[in-house]
């Protein structure tokens, strides 16, 4: 199902912004907040996982039930997971479509990757102390 992906700041995301290798960070920014009616339509429950596919690629996130989210949109705290699907197109403004990316969501059994796994997939070498 197609949804508009909305990303934004949250307290938990901000609290962990200097600790991106910490599981709290991944937990916060891999959460896809969905309206309960949309969850029903999609056939997912709170805590289950969805594969989110956008113009740049696809990533698995956890579903979080959230009545404040409007129908046919999802909200994901701003961070590395959302950026797996958002394209680099800035329409000549320098600003990517952080709040207007159309993404396809479907329920999945695939796991949510960790931050180090995401980094490796891009060719990075996650820091290990």
């Amino acid at each position, binding site marked *: 199902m197609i949804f508009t992906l909305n990303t934004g700041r949250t307290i938990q995301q901000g609290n962990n912004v200097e600790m991106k290798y910490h599981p709290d960070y991944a937990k916060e920014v891999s959460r896809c907040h969905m309206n309960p009616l949309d969850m029903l339509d999609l056939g997912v429950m709170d805590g289950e996982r969805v594969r989110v596919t956008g113009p740049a690629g696809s990533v698995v996130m956890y579903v979080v039930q959230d009545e404040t989210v409007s129908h046919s949109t999802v909200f994901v705290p701003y961070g590395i997971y959302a950026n797996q699907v958002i394209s680099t197109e800035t329409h000549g403004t320098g600003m990517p479509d*952080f709040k207007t990316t159309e993404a396809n969501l479907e329920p999945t059994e695939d796991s949510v990757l960790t931050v180090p796994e995401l980094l*490796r997939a891009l060719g990075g070498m996650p820091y290990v102390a």
Partner: protein
Amino acid sequence: MLHEDVVCPFCACLCDDLKVETDNGTIVKVDNACDLGNHKFLRDDNHRLKEPIRRTPSGWTSATLQHAIDRTVEILLGADRPLLYGWSGTHGEAQSIGVHMAEVLGGVIDSTTSVCHGPSILAIQEVGHPGCTLGQVKNRADLVVYWGANPIEAHPRHMSRYTTYTDGFFLDRAFKERKVIVVDIRRTQTAEVADEFILIKKGGDYAVLSALRAIVRGKSDMIPATVAGVTKEQLLRIAEMCKKAKFGAFFFGMGITQTQGKYKNIRNAIELVDELNRHTKFTLTPMRGHYNVYGFNEVCTWMTGYPYAVDFCRGMAFYNPGETSAVDILTRKECDACLVVASDPAAHFPKDAVRHLGEIPTVQIDPYPNTTTAFCELQIPVAVTGIDAQGTSYRMDGVPIRVKSILNRGYPTDTDILGEIYRRIKEAKRV
């Protein structure tokens, strides 16, 4: 030891009334900060890099500061088109050196602005900025509008220091006298405390702003029954609240800079505020994110003429966001080296831009290991501005405050490291 009037180096509220208690080199207590500020101070110890690190094929190893600086200088001098990115999390004196460096290298310098309030600046460059300092709002505003902004999550003390909950000189019982309007596509926590919440359909901000402008100009007849999901009745009510206010303050965030229309939304908001100024007093303030992102815009402007995304390859400053902004430069694989200072693009840029960071020599100057570290050849840890480094920072309304250093953890500052790198580059280029 108790430090008073400490300045919080997290968001652009730049609260300067924190009380921080240190004991034997550790921060043990913080008062007056919000959750974000608390975390910044109290968790600082735990995960700083102890020394520079260097990436080898088999993993990360430590490096001497000398080697790190030598190698950084080598990388920058060897590049045709280096990108110097970030800057929002450090003090102005360091940002200044960054701009000088970009000039002498003929490279590109950009800040997190381009993925945050860059569109606001683009709009300001079209229609200007009818603004004020936050104290004007605190002392006078009887109407506050948060449009596409969620201060409770992103600027937690904004409402208690500057708007909704704070007393003002001209408002006796501010909380009762002030009205708050919140506009968003979802019912955020900030919306919960609004007197009037406007739930807008995604992408509908431009149309709603236009509708409000039309109403303010006396053309309500042309407004249809709903605009982007908002009823005409609510629009009329909002417009009336704005016109009847003695002083209205409009704050906005990523909700309109990052959505469809980007800077055109902001332009429309500015023009609405301009129009309202013909009826009453109205001001507009972008809710800047990082505590010193505006500082970079200020420094970069007085030095180069432009607030961000400045390209020096022609021997003078050239500005063209969309072309000279970081995401675009990385996406086009145009830069052949990158220095990242005080920000974390690997988490905050779309992934295809991030990939290129790993394909070119990238160095990061940052106290903490972060996602960008994974794409670096080197990272040099430095003192944290506001904790063990001091310097100038600009609040979201342009007020400059000197951020303090309350501890010494034995790290060099951004200014120290960048200063040394710049000196060596100048020497090599015989400037």
